[in-house]
């Protein structure tokens, strides 16, 4: 006998007491047909677009198509028990999900119901799933960094709080790894995280959740899961539900990070719904408004001003800005970024992190292609010290790429070219980083400093990572004060530079 978390006598009592039993006029219709989770309903003359509909058997649906003589609706959840002739009632409500800090540490479905077996969620508030993004006057420029903890990303494609940065790449290129590493690195950075899993295997989601738990990241994270076995309606709704949960933090003057993993699958789910609703197919059989489903979702990721937070909280929180940073994920097929959905999302976001299978297979992980990955607004938010030291890395890699192809044919190279090639090779090696090992700002600064100042030039290429690890260890042991100073000020002054220079020189003597 299974016990349901809602079957607690106190809960039942309060529900019975709060029940409204007055007879009110309700709009009713009848089910005409049920096809793969889509219902055609006759009647319901007063239904609104996007309104929740009540089906028999405690099932709810969403009215999506309002036609002259019928209404097309998607059923959320199981639809096998719905038959022709069933009565459907209007509820007069738009779909809402629970929001608030009570959701942290939990795994929920697209409707905000717990699916982690840890009992009911005592969320006090709910909010609409579909909301309009804050307008122009309520926004603020992106000026604070999101530390991903990955050298390659923080130095070359910095992400700011409130930015939308796309993670794009083929399957098996480490897209989820980048996202999960970023979540893990948010510990102690005043950032709440929401991981929205769309159309993934349930086992993959379970793995991510377990990893987050292991690293202590679940305490500031909400996981919204619509797995591959959930209905297309749930997969379509999950990102909006997660976004609403994230907006709670944004609107209350906090910072939140949301990851949509991945939006390609959401577009597929929406395509399925649209085709079953008999909307006309367009390019790649997607409906006409597939751009809008992503643009309205990503537009809700924003940095909002103090005035917005104050207005939203009714004056309880003042002088604080809020932000929702979005890292949408798009999976490409055989590197084709010119397909419909990838081009759409590239054009919506403020930059992209492009991951390549060739690099991944060559052992460059994260497999970021530094040439085509960009961040359009993150530069303004980048940590000072990383900005100062990271410029050289980008340049070295750009020159290296240019020369590398050309150098394959030339037998003897001049000294300057050879040096550039060697530097590029070492920087490429240095940008590698294992999974679940995010670096602090100070550690990153040390690595970039060493590369910039040419300390790596005489280190064997294969030993770069070992050298780096040992150097970090040495700096933490022998120069803790300097490391703390960098962490506190996020900057490296003249004396700091001198100290670091002598420290790295001293370390190199001991390291063989």
């Amino acid at each position, binding site marked *: 006998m299974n016990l349901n978390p809602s079957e607690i006598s106190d809960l039942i009592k309060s529900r019975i007491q709060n029940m409204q*039993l007055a007879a009110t*006029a309700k*709009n009713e219709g009848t089910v*005409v047909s049920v096809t793969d989770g889509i219902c*055609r309903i*006759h009647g319901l003359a*007063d239904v609104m677009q996007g309104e929740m509909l009540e089906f028999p058997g*405690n099932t709810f649906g969403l009215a999506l198509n309002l036609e*002259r003589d*019928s209404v097309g609706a998607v059923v959320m959840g199981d639809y096998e028990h719905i038959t022709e002739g069933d009565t459907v009632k209007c509820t007069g409500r738009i779909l809402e999900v629970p929001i608030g800090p009570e959701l942290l540490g939990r795994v929920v479905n697209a409707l905000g119901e717990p699916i982690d077996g840890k009992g009911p969620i005592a969320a006090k508030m709910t909010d609409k799933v579909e909301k309009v993004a804050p307008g122009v006057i309520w926004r603020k420029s992106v000026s604070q960094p999101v530390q991903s903890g990955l050298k390659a990303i923080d130095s070359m494609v910095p992400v700011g709080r409130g930015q939308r940065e796309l993670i794009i790449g083929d399957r098996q290129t480490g897209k989820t790894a980048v996202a999960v590493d970023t979540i893990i690195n948010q510990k102690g950075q005043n950032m709440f995280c929401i991981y929205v899993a769309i159309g993934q295997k349930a086992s993959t989601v379970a793995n991510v959740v377990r990893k987050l738990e292991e690293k202590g990241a679940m305490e500031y994270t909400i996981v919204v899961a619509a797995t591959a076995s959930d209905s297309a309606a749930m997969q379509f709704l999950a990102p909006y539900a997660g976004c609403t949960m994230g907006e709670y933090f944004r609107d209350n003057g906090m910072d939140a990070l949301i990851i949509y993993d991945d939006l390609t699958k959401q577009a597929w789910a929406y395509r399925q719904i649209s085709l079953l609703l008999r909307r006309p197919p367009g390019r790649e059989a997607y409906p006409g408004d597939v751009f809008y489903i992503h643009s309205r979702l990503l537009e809700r990721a924003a940095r909002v001003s103090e005035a917005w937070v104050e207005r939203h909280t009714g004056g309880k929180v003042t002088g604080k800005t809020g932000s929702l940073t979005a890292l949408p994920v798009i999976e490409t097929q055989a590197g084709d970024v010119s397909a419909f959905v990838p081009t759409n999302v590239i054009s919506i976001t403020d930059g992209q992190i492009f991951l390549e299978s060739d690099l991944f297979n060559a052992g460059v992980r994260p497999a970021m292609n530094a040439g085509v990955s960009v961040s359009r607004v993150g530069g303004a938010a980048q940590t000072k010290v990383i900005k100062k030291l990271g410029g050289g890395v980008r340049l070295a890699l750009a020159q290296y790429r240019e020369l590398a192809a050309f150098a394959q044919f030339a037998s003897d190279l001049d000294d300057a070219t050879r040096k550039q090639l060697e530097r590029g090779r070492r920087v490429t090696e240095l940008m590698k980083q294992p999974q679940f090992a995010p670096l602090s700002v100070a550690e990153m600064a040390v690595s970039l400093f060493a590369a910039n100042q040419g300390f790596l030039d005489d280190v064997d290429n294969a030993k770069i990572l070992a050298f780096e690890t040992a150097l970090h260890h040495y700096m933490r042991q022998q120069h803790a004060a300097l490391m703390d100073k960098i962490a506190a000020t996020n900057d490296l002054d003249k004396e700091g530079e001198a100290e670091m220079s002598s420290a790295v020189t001293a370390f190199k003597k001991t390291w063989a």
Partner: protein
Amino acid sequence: MAENVTVARPYAEAAFALAKAGGALAAWQGALARMAVASADTQMLECIADPRIAPAALADLFLGVSGDLSVEQRSFANLLAENRRLTVLPEISELFEQLKNAEEDTREAVVSSAFPLDDAQVKNLVADLERKFGCRIKATVEIAPELIGGIRIALGDQVIDASVRGKLAAMAVSLKN
């Protein structure tokens, strides 16, 4: 079927406009109701579906069983036969009735009650409904023991459920959520 309603609407509107111009709403309503019954007959349905029967022959056959019709009504049936739309006659009849009711500012109410209602009760109920909806109400009373107690009133899409069964269902939903 929703699709049939869409097909039937222009026919119903055309018939209604004709009937209104000719001042023969009641006659048309009766004629359409008769034709609807005739078209829903199983033997007639077979004939309608048979591609070997030409539209003209089908129209003759249909008019033969539909009783006394005016010239306009006969040409209406001919047109339907020609367009192979005789099967939507029940929907046309229904829509025509709705249009007539809207014209006369009347709505039809189906009152389902668990127990028989006496005339005074029905009269009171109709008076209340007329006040609430601001139009005349034509009420039909049905006995539905499955409601357990109370009544349920349906005016088209709008349903006022004051039955014990409805309340139990509402309670079940709110307890499960």
